C-alpha cells in the first residue's frame, strides 16, 4: 500500500480555518446541540484549507432530512441523496463517473476532488452495511464518514447495532421486564479495518485537532478510508443541549469512545486519557442510562465498564502487535 505522505501537509491553525466560507449553510434544521453538523463543518474546514472540493453522497437520516428540504438546500458543495442503505454504492458510482470522464478529458484537471459518503449509524452499521462493505472491498477512492449517534434518531430513537447495551430506545425500551438494549455495540471501525483498507479512524469533535489531523490523512489517502465520528444527540440521549461537547469529552475520557487510527494496517491509539474516568461519569450525563443508577442495577454499570475495558485492552493489543518490529 502507498505510504500516506502526511507530514508535509499541515492543517492550518484554527484561527485561519474559521476564515474560510461555510459550505454547510446556516438555517439547516438539525437540533440545537447536534453533533453531526459540528462534524461536517470540521471536515469542510480541513478540505477548504487543503484546497479539496468535497462531493457528498448522504444516506437517508438526520443530516439528509434536515439539510435538503425542497426548495432549499444547506449544501454549498455537490451533494446527492439516493436512499437509506446505499450511500457507499452511490458514491462508488459518482467516483467511477469521475474516473471515466477524467480519462476522456471531459473534466477540468486542476481540481482536487474527494468523494465523501456520509451516513448515520443506521445507514452504516445496519441497513447500509453491505453497500459499505462492498465499496470498501472494491477500493474506491472515497471517505466513508459515519456520524454515530447510536440509534435511529431521525425517526425517534429506535435501537441500532450501534446502540450501547442498556440504553433506553423506543424499540427496546426500558420496562418492568427490560433494561433497554440487551446487546453491546458493534465495533464498527474494527470491522471496517478488517477490510484491509488503507485508513480507518475513530474521532470525536470535542478533540477537534485529532479529528482534523485524521480527516487530513483520509483526504490524502488513495483508496477507501473509514471514519467513525462520535455524534452527540441531545434529543435521543436525553442529555443537555449545552453539554454536547462535555458529553463527547466524557465519552473519550472514560475510554468509552477511544480515539484511534489504523494506517496501512498499523493500529495506533491517538489519545490516552491520563486518568481514565469511570464509565458512570459518562452515563450520568444522559437520561437514556437513568435506570442504571437504581441501586439494583449497579452490576449493569459494572458490566458496561467491563466492555469498555475489554475494547480498550483489545485496541492496546492491536497497537502492540501491529507495530511489532519483526
Amino acid at each position, binding site marked *: 500500500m502507498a505510504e500516506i505522505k502526511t507530514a508535509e501537509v499541515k492543517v492550518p491553525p484554527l484561527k485561519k480555518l474559521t476564515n474560510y466560507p461555510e459550505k454547510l449553510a446556516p438555517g439547516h434544521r438539525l437540533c440545537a446541540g447536534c453533533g453531526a453538523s459540528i462534524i461536517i463543518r470540521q471536515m469542510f474546514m480541513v478540505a477548504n484549507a487543503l484546497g479539496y472540493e468535497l462531493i457528498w453522497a448522504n444516506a437517508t437520516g438526520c443530516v439528509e432530512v434536515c439539510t435538503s428540504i425542497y426548495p432549499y438546500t444547506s449544501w454549498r458543495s455537490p451533494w446527492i441523496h439516493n436512499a437509506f442503505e446505499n450511500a457507499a454504492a452511490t*458514491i462508488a*458510482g459518482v467516483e*467511477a463517473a469521475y474516473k471515466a470522464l477524467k480519462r476522456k478529458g471531459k473534466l477540468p484537471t486542476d481540481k482536487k476532488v474527494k468523494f465523501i459518503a456520509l451516513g448515520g449509524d443506521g445507514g452504516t452499521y445496519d441497513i447500509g452495511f453491505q453497500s459499505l462493505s462492498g465499496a470498501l472491498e472494491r477500493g474506491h477512492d472515497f471517505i466513508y464518514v459515519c456520524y454515530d449517534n447510536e440509534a435511529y434518531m431521525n425517526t425517534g430513537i429506535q435501537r441500532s447495532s450501534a446502540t450501547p447495551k442498556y440504553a433506553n430506545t423506543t424499540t427496546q425500551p426500558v420496562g418492568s421486564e427490560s433494561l433497554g438494549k440487551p446487546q453491546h455495540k458493534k465495533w464498527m471501525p474494527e470491522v471496517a479495518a478488517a477490510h484491509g483498507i488503507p485508513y480507518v479512524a475513530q474521532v470525536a469533535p470535542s478533540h477537534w485537532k485529532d479529528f482534523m489531523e485524521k480527516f487530513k490523512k483520509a483526504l490524502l489517502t488513495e483508496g477507501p478510508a473509514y471514519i467513525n465520528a462520535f455524534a452527540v444527540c441531545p434529543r435521543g440521549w436525553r442529555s443537555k443541549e449545552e453539554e454536547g461537547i462535555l458529553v463527547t469529552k466524557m465519552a473519550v475520557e472514560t475510554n468509552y469512545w477511544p480515539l484511534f487510527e489504523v494506517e496501512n494496517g498499523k493500529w495506533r491509539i491517538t489519545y490516552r486519557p491520563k486518568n481514565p474516568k469511570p464509565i458512570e461519569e459518562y452515563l450520568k450525563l444522559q437520561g437514556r442510562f437513568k435506570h442504571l443508577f437504581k441501586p439494583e442495577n449497579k452490576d449493569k454499570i459494572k458490566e458496561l465498564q467491563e466492555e469498555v475495558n475489554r475494547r480498550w485492552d483489545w485496541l492496546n493489543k492491536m497497537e502492540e502487535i501491529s507495530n511489532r518490529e519483526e
Partner: protein
Amino acid sequence: MRPELIKEVKYVPYSGNMAAAEAMRQINPDVVAAYPITPQTELMQFFADFVANGLVDTEYIPVESEHSAMSACVGAAAAGSRAMTATAGPGLAYMWEVLGIASGMRLPIIMTVVNRALSAPINIHGDQSDMMGARDQGWIQIFSENAEEQYDNLIQAIRIAEDERTRLPVMVGMDGFVISHAIERVRLLPDRAVEEFIGELKPMYPLLDVDNPVTHGSVAMTDSYMEFKRQQREAMMNAYKVIREVGEAFEEAFGKKYEHIETYKTEDADYILIIIGSTAGTAKFVIDKLREEKGIKVGLIKIRTYRPFPYYDVMDAIEASNCKAIGVFDRAETFGAVGGPLYSDIATAMYLRNKQYPMVSFIYGLGGRDTNVHHIEEAIDKVMQAAAGKEVSFINYLNLNE
C-alpha cells in the same frame, strides 16, 4: 445507411446476451455497475471480457448486489456520465426501491432485463413477472422479440432516455433463455454508425461540476412531492413521441422499422392475438400455418413499448381489422385481478375508444414453461369460440398440468 458503412455491417450467430453485450460495447458507456444473475450472467461476463481486453473505456464496477448496481448507476448518472447495467428476475426485484429513485431523479440509465420468474418457488427460467412487477416504477419499458431486437432496442434506448423531453431511465426486456441463450442470426451495425446514432450525452446539472454545486435527491414534502410526480407523467407522455421519433431515425439510418407495436397480418384478421416478447415469433408461425392450412384469419399485435402503453396504436390496429375476438397473452400473473397485466391494459384501451370486443386472457410460460405451436392453436380455438358467442372460461392457462 451510408454506402461506406453498409460494407461494415455484419451478420453473426449471436445469443441475446451476446447481442446485448455487443450493443453495450458499441455504446461504450462511461460506467457499468452490474451483479451477475442467471440468465443475465453471461451478458455481464461478455462485457467484463470487453473491459479486460480494453475494448471499452468503461469504468466497470462489479458490485456486491443488484441494489448497489442500481445505486451506483444513480450516482454515476447524476454525476453526469452515461451509465448502464443489466439484471434479471429477483435482481430486478431487489433493485425495486432504487428503480423509482432513478426515474424520480430523471436519470437516463439504460438496463437490459433478461426476463426471469420471481421466487417462490425459486426458478431461473423465463417469464415477465419481473418487469411487470416494476411496471409502475416510472421506467420506460421496451420488450424485444429476439436477439437482434434487443441489440437494436438498446441502441435506441440511449437516445430515448437522454432526450431532454424525457430524461427517464429505460429497461429493455428479453425473455430469459429463449432469447438470452438461443443463438440466432443477428445484424450488427458498424461501431461508428452506432456512435454517430447515439451521439454524446449532454449532462444536466452534473454533480461533478464543482463550480456550480447542486443538490440531488432532496426531500419533497406535501407541498411539492405531487408536482414532481406530475412532471414524471409529462415526461412519460413525451417518451411516447420520442420513442416513435427515435424509431423513425433508426429506420432512416439502418433501414429497419421500429414502432410502439408491430402488427402481423392484422389488416384482414378476424381474430387478434396480443403478445409481448419471444412468443410473438411462435405466434407468427402459427398464424401462417392456420391461414394456409385452414383459411383461418388470425393476426398478431406485438407490444414493443409497454410503458408508456400505446393504447391508441393497439386500438387503431384492432379497429382496422375485422376483429371478432381477441386473445391476450400474459407471461406474468396479477393475482386477484382480472386477467394478466397486459389484459388490463387492453381493456383500458378498448374503454378509451368505447369498444367492447370479446377478449380472452391466457397466462402462459410462467417459470419457463414451454409454449409451443400446439398451445397457441389451442388458444386461438378458444378465441374463435368466444367470437362465436360461446361461453369461454375467462382466464386460461396454457400448457398447465391439471
